[in-house]
């Protein structure tokens, strides 16, 4: 039986073995985009690491890190930005996506510390959960796969309103076990809705490995049962993720839903409350970190002479400065006033 494993090149029916020449960027992408997104990546990573440290200091109650998932999140975001008419339904591990979509470091820290300036829910929800409508993002809950049917409904509403919006919905490999994942894909397929299902597969649902989660090797292979294209992409390579998503957008708008499985690594424990040493084999994370996009992207940018080592260092120190500043501002900011407890239970 032929394996369903595919590469980004196959999204539009190209050769599975086509390899992007190092120096040549995919269509629509310029060196400036890479610098821009590398800068966002470094800022996100800096915030992510600080948030974890602040949790250990008792200043951030809970956090889910996106370290190791950033290339998938930022690559797809870059495609969304280039397109200009996409709406995003992320899940709880999409810190990088939510930050890079346009939040300031101060807003991020406000959210993680539960301060009044939290842009997603004003301190009602877990950090960066709720909605960031200026950046076209909704994530209501932590119930895995609940966002999938909602995203399909958003796409349906958009079509009924005469729009052309392509909706991205993100989820982990664990969420693919939920019945609503099937229901969402089924409905999107029936109505040929422009939805891109993006599975960030890190092969762990908290502690449960993929082998205990599904009987197939690749989530993407399930696309066939919905009559939609499905592709497995190297989620550690931002450019690959960008390119696949770009092609998926074109397909989605013209023909209907697409399933993209982005193979990523989870560098940290499930959340700050978890200790992955209890269930991950020794050395696994260390090996995964060799493909850290923070390292590989810097290497590429320097090798391609897009940035110098000095510029790379400057980006890192500027990110650190912004993180320091944001932490200080958020720490000294006010929490939401108690009087707000009863606000917005109902809409006017």
């Amino acid at each position: 039986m032929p394996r369903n494993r595919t590469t980004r090149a196959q999204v539009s029916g190209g050769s599975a073995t086509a390899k992007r020449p190092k120096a040549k960027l995919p269509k629509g992408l310029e060196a400036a985009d890479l610098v821009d997104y590398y800068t966002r990546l470094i800022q996100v990573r800096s915030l992510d690491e600080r948030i974890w440290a602040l949790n250990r200091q008792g200043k951030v109650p809970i956090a889910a890190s996106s370290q190791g998932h950033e290339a998938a999140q930022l690559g797809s975001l870059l495609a969304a930005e280039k397109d200009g008419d996409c709406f995003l339904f992320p899940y709880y591990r999409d810190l990088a996506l939510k930050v890079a979509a346009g939040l300031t470091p101060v807003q991020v820290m406000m959210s993680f510390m539960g301060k009044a300036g939290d842009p997603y829910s004003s301190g009602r929800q877990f950090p960066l959960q709720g909605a960031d409508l200026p950046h076209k993002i909704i994530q209501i809950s932590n119930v895995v796969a609940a966002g999938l049917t909602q995203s399909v409904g958003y796409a349906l509403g958009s079509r009924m309103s005469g729009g052309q919006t392509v909706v991205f919905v993100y989820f982990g490999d664990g969420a693919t076990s939920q019945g609503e994942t099937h229901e969402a894909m089924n409905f999107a397929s029936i109505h040929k809705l422009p939805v891109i299902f993006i599975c960030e597969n890190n092969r762990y649902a908290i502690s449960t490995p993929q082998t205990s989660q599904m009987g197939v090797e690749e989530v993407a292979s399930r696309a066939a049962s919905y009559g939609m294209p499905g592709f497995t992409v190297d989620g550690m390579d931002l450019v690959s993720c960008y390119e696949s998503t770009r092609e998926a957008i074109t397909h989605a708008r013209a023909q209907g839903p697409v399933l993209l499985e982005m193979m990523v690594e989870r560098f940290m424990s499930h959340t700050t409350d978890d200790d992955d040493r209890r269930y991950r084999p020794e050395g696994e994370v260390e090996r995964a970190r060799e493909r850290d996009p923070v390292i590989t992207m810097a290497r590429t940018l320097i090798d391609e002479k897009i940035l110098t080592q000095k510029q790379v260092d400057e980006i890192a120190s500027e990110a650190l400065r912004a993180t320091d500043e944001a932490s200080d501002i958020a720490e000294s900011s006010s929490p939401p006033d108690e009087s707000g407890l009863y606000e917005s239970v109902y809409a006017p």
Partner: protein
Amino acid sequence: MAVKSVIEAIREAIREEMDRDSKVFVMGEDVGIRGGVFLATQGLAEEFGDQRIIDAPLAEASIMGIALGAAFQGMRPIPEVQFSDFVWPSINQLIGEAARTCYGTNGAVQVPMVIRMPYGGGIRGGLFHSQNVETHFFHTPGLKVVAPCTPYDAKGLLKSAIRDNNPVVFLEHKKTYRLVRGEVPDEEYTLPIGKADVKRGGSNITLVSYGLTLHYCLEAAEELAGGGVDVEVIDLRTLTPLDTETILESVKKTGKLAIVHEDNITGGVGAEIAALAAGQAFEYLDGPVTRICGPDVPTMPFAQTLEDAYMPTADKIADELRKLAAY
């Protein structure tokens, strides 16, 4: 004014609102060419097309989740749950997500959605076609819950629910669909959500109910009137927000309170109204607060004898009212 059935009034309300606002659409099982199993949407697919009267796959979680997502986008979906008994697969999207959306986004995202569901028993529906589900929604902040019992109220309240910017659970007692008929104005009207209606004035006992049993309450009140007991019958019409003002005003006048509902007695709407009276009209009460409600069994059984044993009837209500009047 024409005399119409509850189901006709509901169909009219949907048609008028779909005609008025292109954002309104219906999605549910068999709502299209079949017109719904109770024919609530009969003829609407022909009039508005299959893009606005959408036959959904048999998967309630996706019906609710997709309707919710469409509401995020600015549409005004009316998902139909074919029988309230089938709402459970979708309960996360309704109670877990829709009810919490406005609060959880600090008011940024609204959910203008009406979840219609035929509920209740007395129709030999057994355990999975008779369920009273209202208490679960009544307990959930963020939802509005409407349960009318006449064609006039059903139409006016459904139109208001469709125009509301919150998730409204719209409960239609299936036994009233064709059994209850009444006058419905030809001209446009709406009724406010959150206002009870005094269906019969009285001075001796306050009798509170909603849905099918409201009609049984009116029969019981008529029976007691023959014995000189003057019963005031309040139709809640809306469970959330609860019209506490109308209830308290009546209790303060009569000094005696009885509540009737088909749903299980424990932790039900009646318990909340009893607590309301105990807390805010304590010194006016002149008798034990009485509840005539469904027993604590998992819904009405199928056999006629068992269904009858479950159901609050006019006779059962009248018996309890006589005891309360004599207290």
